[in-house]
């Protein structure tokens, strides 16, 4: 059992590509070792900004032997045919073959033993294959090698049981050497084994394990804030990114000039995070503290003084810019910036952002009225201003502050609070974990913005497909679903979509109404959403399938799914489901056999047993319940309870009544009765879709 150590040392690998690269390389090597019948007992990958390293342990020293058997020509065939076969099998004489009787006569057989090759011989080609096959989001050519890589390869360290494996990589050196940290240990390091490699690198200020780097940074950050009685604004994504930018993390703290602390907290955080990758600190009261933390890749000889001073200067320049924008942007009212949206393209086929603003304004106002808002004018105003901050200098510099700046500027202009908040909120929810707006004005504008995008992009054929969703329409659809469900909005989406489509002037856009297609798309997203909430897929299917056309009231749909879920959790419900299946199976079988349907009315005169009568009475009592109580009054729970009461009469019927009697009239009547069970229950949901 042997050990393979492979390190690809390169110039700096982009942080965002590192994790996938090492997973890919480790996976490729694993698969190739298995395919070559020399699987490793364990395999592990490490990644830093400059290296991809794989350690595979417990690789067999050789491949297992294989025996190959080949049938040759018939015994007694022309000599030329026999010679040809011997040559191809690598044998000298026919005596080295076996001759065997087969069904078709006596034939020569060559039995060739192929001894397994030593792993050492197999590995170089296998490793080169893995390196060549590793996909990068972007790769490049460079003079030293023919191999495309993310950035130039500096050297390759490749040891099998401590011996260098030769890999032909043109001018990229391959051997047992690597280098330590670029500044703290730049010399060459000679390595004898994987354990030695890890230890040498540790001494050379390279923390090989990404998780260890993350942990070291986390600890460093905590020590830094604890020293000053502050807390950290948690930011896992930034922590992860920063761990991909350093081989030897050193956490340092800098100060922010008090002058800048009057900037909105979001501006401070964004200016620090987006460009500089700094962590923000909070004071005891939860407000931003005038400190920032960052991670350097060097243990400087002056304890970091120069580095901190440099970073403070950079931040000062950035914040000075931000303060300038903050002052400049507030000189004119937000309202006057709407006009400039005419120059900002939304989409070539869907007009400018100004055009979109006009459409959102109309749709949001309609929604405000459908939702019976008290002051729909606020909604119209918020929609009109929603995109105006895109023309401000601050959002130009920090696009991630869209909406947030609009809110600040609107408040500065004296707009109503509900209007200002809606400007900030209308992009939300931004993802499954983001909070959903709940204020009426925000809800209407958020819905209008998303629905306008969905309708517009569907109408011009820009629908999501597979992993392609360039306009984030799946997210928009989920946003619409959550806004409706979490706020219990009773909307007929079909009407809303038609309304939204009518805002695209046909003379200008010439679009067809995509409402039905969009509704189907939304239904799909809704199913995905419910599944993610842990709702059984068959219940969703049952609730969806019941209505002839796609249900467009999501609140009602959800309530039905929930009622169904509860119904099946009851004893009577679960048992009734079994009876339902039995009834519909019998009817289905007989209908198929007889080639006719048994869905006509039941004839009371033909009842012989009291169980028939009882079941029929119960079904008649229930017959109007679905239409009135269920669909009109929406008392789903009550109808479900009533349906559950079918259980006993149905069970009694099956106990006492023989359906397939010799009397055709009786048999038909009984089949109709069973069919009635199915009909009644299916008015509420398609119970045949439910499993288990």
């Amino acid at each position, binding site marked *: 059992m042997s050990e393979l150590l492979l390190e690809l040392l390169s*110039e*700096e690998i*982009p*942080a*965002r590509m590192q994790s996938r690269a090492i997973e890919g390389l480790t996976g490729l090597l694993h698969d190739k070792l298995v395919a070559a019948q020399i699987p490793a007992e364990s395999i592990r990958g490490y990644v830093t900004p400059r290296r991809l390293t794989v350690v595979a342990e417990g690789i067999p020293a050789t491949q297992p032997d294989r025996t190959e058997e080949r049938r040759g020509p018939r015994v007694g065939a022309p000599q030329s045919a026999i010679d040809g076969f011997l040559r191809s099998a690598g044998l000298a004489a026919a005596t080295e073959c076996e001759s065997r009787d087969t069904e078709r006569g006596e034939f020569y057989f060559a039995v060739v033993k192929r001894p397994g090759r030593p792993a050492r011989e197999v590995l170089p080609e296998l490793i080169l294959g893995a390196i060549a096959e590793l996909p990068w989001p*972007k*790769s*490049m*050519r*460079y*003079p*030293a090698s023919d191999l495309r890589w*993310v*950035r*130039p390869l*500096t050297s390759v360290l490749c040891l099998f049981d401590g011996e260098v494996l030769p890999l032909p990589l043109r*001018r990229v050196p391959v051997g047992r050497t690597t280098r330590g940290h670029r*500044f703290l240990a*730049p*010399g060459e390091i000679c390595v004898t084994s994987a354990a030695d490699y890890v230890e040498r690198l540790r001494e050379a200020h390279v923390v090989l394990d990404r998780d260890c780097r993350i942990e070291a940074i986390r600890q460093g950050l905590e020590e830094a804030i604890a020293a000053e009685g502050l807390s950290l604004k948690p930011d896992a994504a930034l922590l992860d990114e920063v761990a991909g*930018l350093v081989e030897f993390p050193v956490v340092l703290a800098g100060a922010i000039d008090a002058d800048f602390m009057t900037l909105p907290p979001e501006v401070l955080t964004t200016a620090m995070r987006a460009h*500089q990758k700094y962590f923000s600190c909070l004071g005891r009261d939860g407000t931003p503290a005038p400190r920032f933390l*960052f991670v*350097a*890749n*060097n243990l*400087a*000889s*002056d304890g970091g003084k*120069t*580095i901190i*001073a*440099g*970073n403070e*200067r*950079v*931040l*000062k*320049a950035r914040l*000075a*810019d931000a303060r*300038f924008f903050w002052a400049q942007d507030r000189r004119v009212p937000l309202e006057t910036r709407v006009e400039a949206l005419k*120059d*900002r*393209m939304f989409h*070539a086929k869907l007009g400018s952002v100004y055009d979109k603003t006009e459409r959102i304004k109309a749709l949001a106002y309609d929604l405000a009225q459908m939702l019976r808002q008290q002051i729909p004018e606020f909604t119209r105003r918020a929609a009109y201003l929603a995109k105006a901050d895109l023309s401000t200098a601050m959002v130009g510099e920090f696009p991630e502050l869209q909406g947030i700046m609009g809110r600040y500027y609107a408040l500065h202009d004296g707009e109503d609070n509900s209007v200002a908040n809606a400007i900030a909120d209308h992009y939300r929810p931004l993802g499954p974990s983001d909070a959903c707006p709940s204020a009426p004005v925000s809800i209407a504008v958020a819905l209008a913005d998303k629905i306008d995008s969905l309708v517009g992009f569907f109408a011009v054929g820009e629908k999501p497909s597979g992993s392609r969703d360039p306009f984030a329409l799946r997210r928009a659809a989920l946003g619409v679903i959550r806004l409706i469900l979490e706020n219990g909005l009773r909307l007929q989406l079909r009407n809303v979509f038609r309304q939204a489509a009518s805002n695209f002037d046909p003379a200008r856009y010439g679009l067809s109404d995509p409402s039905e297609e969009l509704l189907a798309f939304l239904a799909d997203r809704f199913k995905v959403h419910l599944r993610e909430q842990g709702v059984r897929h068959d219940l969703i299917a049952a609730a969806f399938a019941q209505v002839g056309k796609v249900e467009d009231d999501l609140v009602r749909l959800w309530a039905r799914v929930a009622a169904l879920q509860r119904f099946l959790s009851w004893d009577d419900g679960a048992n009734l489901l079994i009876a339902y299946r039995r009834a519909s199976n019998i009817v289905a079988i007989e209908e198929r056999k007889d080639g006719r349907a048994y869905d006509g009315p039941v004839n009371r005169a033909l009842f012989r047993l009291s169980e028939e009568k009882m079941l029929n009475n119960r079904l008649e009592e229930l017959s109007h319940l679905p239409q009135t109580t269920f669909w009109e009054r929406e008392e789903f729970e009550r109808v479900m309870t009533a349906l559950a009461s079918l259980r006993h009469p149905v069970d009694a019927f099956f106990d006492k009544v023989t359906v397939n009697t010799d009397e055709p009239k009786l048999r038909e009547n009984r089949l109709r009765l069973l069919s009635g069970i199915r009909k009644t229950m299916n008015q509420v949901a398609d119970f045949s879709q439910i499993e288990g």
Partner: protein
Amino acid sequence: MSPWARPPAAGQIARGRADYFNTKGGALSFQSLILDLQRFWADQGCVILQPYDIEVGAGTFHPATALHALGPEPWRAAYVQPSRRPADGRYGENPNRVQQHYQLQVILKPAPADGQDLYLASLAAIGIDARLHDIRFVEDDWESPTLGAWGLGWEVWLDGMEVSQFTYFQQVGGIECDPVSTELTYGLERLAMYVQGVESMFDLDYNGASGPARVTYGQVFKRAEREFSAYNFELADTARLVVHFADAETECRALVDRGLALPAYDQCLKASHLFNLLDARGAISVTERTAYILRVRALANACCAAWLAGPSSVE
């Protein structure tokens, strides 16, 4: 023998890896910074060229980079190039933004294996000791839509400040670079502001003299910033610029047809700058903008093809 007298040997690198720790003390003036960087790159076998005499948006557009990056001949050059970005002008009132700044541009073809070490050694040559600073290579891929060019590389951070671009050219004028070159671009004002510790570009010590002989960057360039900002944003005659653009385009095509790559490329550069002026004047709509970029790119592609079709560039 002074370094200037030493014959430059392309491809041969005299300095060792740890050299970027050998630094000298004292803040450099703007011009000393340039002189030291030029001397450093001359020692690495670069020919030291002068700025190209046509307005360009970046040092990359100088024919010594844009055209010489193509073809198989080895080539090493360094030069300072004023970069004109009409839309970035702020009438001399913003401490960090100007319509013209200086870049020091280095092109190394083929890309050497120790390009990063050379770059770090060049920082040491201007007093930036890697042991005291936090120097990072942060992903930044470069693309010039007007030049039909792209490459992969980094922006180099010095204690959190971007001071250089480091790019491996993959394509120029729509043509694959073979061999691949290394392109280094130093933002000279930024670097000098960092080295000198000043907050405004205009306060930079230009010549290192004291007393009445002292000259600041503002003394040299502030008036130019004011006047060119006024021209770029207010006074440039857009109707005439449109005509000039078309003229340059026609002339470029005619020269390409005659196989005169360099004069044709001059016209391409003029067209590119005229487009930048039109853009700064806000005279171009979003859709027109794309069309203009494609027109300049078509010219650049034609010039690059003509350059390669001609006699070997270094005779």
